[in-house]
């Protein structure tokens, strides 16, 4: 069998997924902790002060990675949901729905840190400009996905309904990203550009990028932990769960 197809089939098996994710999670945390510690200490204490915003600008080390994660997690959730809808892979559905609370948390952090930043720099906590409003809509989309999933009793059906909503909300991502270019906003334009020159000093940029990488590991560790818990809860009466938790050999062990 094609190794990629085999990997997908294996990870689709609950017992295999449970064991694989169990092995990965400690490594993900081990990558997150030093990266986040270095990024935060470097960003909050050692990066040079900004010429205009002075020390206030340091909130970017929390605000920007959170805002990036809020959008990336939404894309991951929608894609996993789509895989679940088309191939009916249960693990993909579980992973998709496990993305929602983490994404909602990052969105909330981005909105709150943004408001705290807005007061001293702009002179207001909140304005209804295109960037802020579309980010708030993203939070409501996450809450909508979570609410819809919780409202339907049968988990497989619930996951499909939530995936459809997640996919429809995907249209908000380019709106958030380009809002600062398409419309006049109080929010600043893009500082970090993939194409062209970023308008931030390198000594300020490096801790920011390290934080961006660290949050990815944080997300992955949280995602796998949540999906495992969901899986155990749903399969609490299945034989493989007893085998994994009870230690007695069962079908889960036999697969390896």
């Amino acid at each position, binding site marked *: 069998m094609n190794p990629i197809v085999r990997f997908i089939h294996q990870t689709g098996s609950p017992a295999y997924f449970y064991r694989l994710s169990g092995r990965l999670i400690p490594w993900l945390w081990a990558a997150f902790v030093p990266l986040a510690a270095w990024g935060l200490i470097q960003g909050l204490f050692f990066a040079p002060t900004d010429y205009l915003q002075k020390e206030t600008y340091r909130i970017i080390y929390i605000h920007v990675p959170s805002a990036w994660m809020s959008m990336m997690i939404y894309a991951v959730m929608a894609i996993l949901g*789509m895989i679940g809808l088309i191939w009916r892979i249960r693990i993909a559905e579980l992973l998709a729905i496990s993305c929602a609370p983490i994404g909602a948390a990052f969105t909330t952090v981005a909105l709150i840190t943004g408001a705290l930043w807005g007061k001293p720099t702009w002179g207001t906590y909140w304005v209804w400009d295109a960037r802020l409003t579309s980010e708030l809509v993203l939070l409501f989309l996450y809450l909508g996905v979570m609410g819809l999933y919780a409202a339907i009793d049968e988990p497989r059906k619930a996951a499909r309904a939530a995936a459809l909503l997640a996919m429809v909300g995907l249209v908000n991502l380019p709106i958030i990203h380009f809002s600062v270019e398409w419309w006049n906003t109080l929010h600043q334009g893009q500082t970090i550009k993939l194409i062209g020159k970023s308008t931030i000093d390198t000594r300020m940029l490096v801790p920011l990028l390290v934080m961006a990488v660290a949050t990815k590991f944080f997300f992955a560790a949280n995602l796998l932990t949540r999906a495992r818990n969901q899986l155990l809860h749903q399969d609490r009466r299945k034989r493989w769960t007893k085998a994994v938790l009870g230690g007695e050999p069962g079908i889960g062990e036999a697969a390896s």
Partner: protein
Amino acid sequence: MTPTRKRRLITILLVLAGVASAAVVASFALKQNMLYYIHPSEVLAQSLPPERQFRLGGLVVNDSVQRAGDSLAVRFSVTDCSAVIPVSYDGILPDLFREGEAVIAIGSLNADGVFQANEVLAKHDENYMPPEVAETLKTAGPACAESALDR
């Protein structure tokens, strides 16, 4: 891919295409309403009626800020490099308010063409650098940076 999966994939792609086109149509229809502020030259071109509330955005003209000695009243001019509108405001300005930087003023034009602001917000830009780097750049900067507006 089995026919069922192909059908599901096509359905999903159609849904996505439908939602995307609806979003494009909606944002085109709301283009004007999505603007948080308008520039001085747009204000003058539209000849808005007096007392109509709107948000004016632009750069504070260098050396235009005049403070009253005995109150918080302040007058300054806002420009987008082609038109200039005088603004009068009575209140506390945000920390980042300074000449040559972008601001957004909320209020209305009075009969004399002076913009009476009820609120002034500072718009910070996307440039982050240490003071010593800013110092070297400042000497080379133009008096009115067009690029400083749309950021």
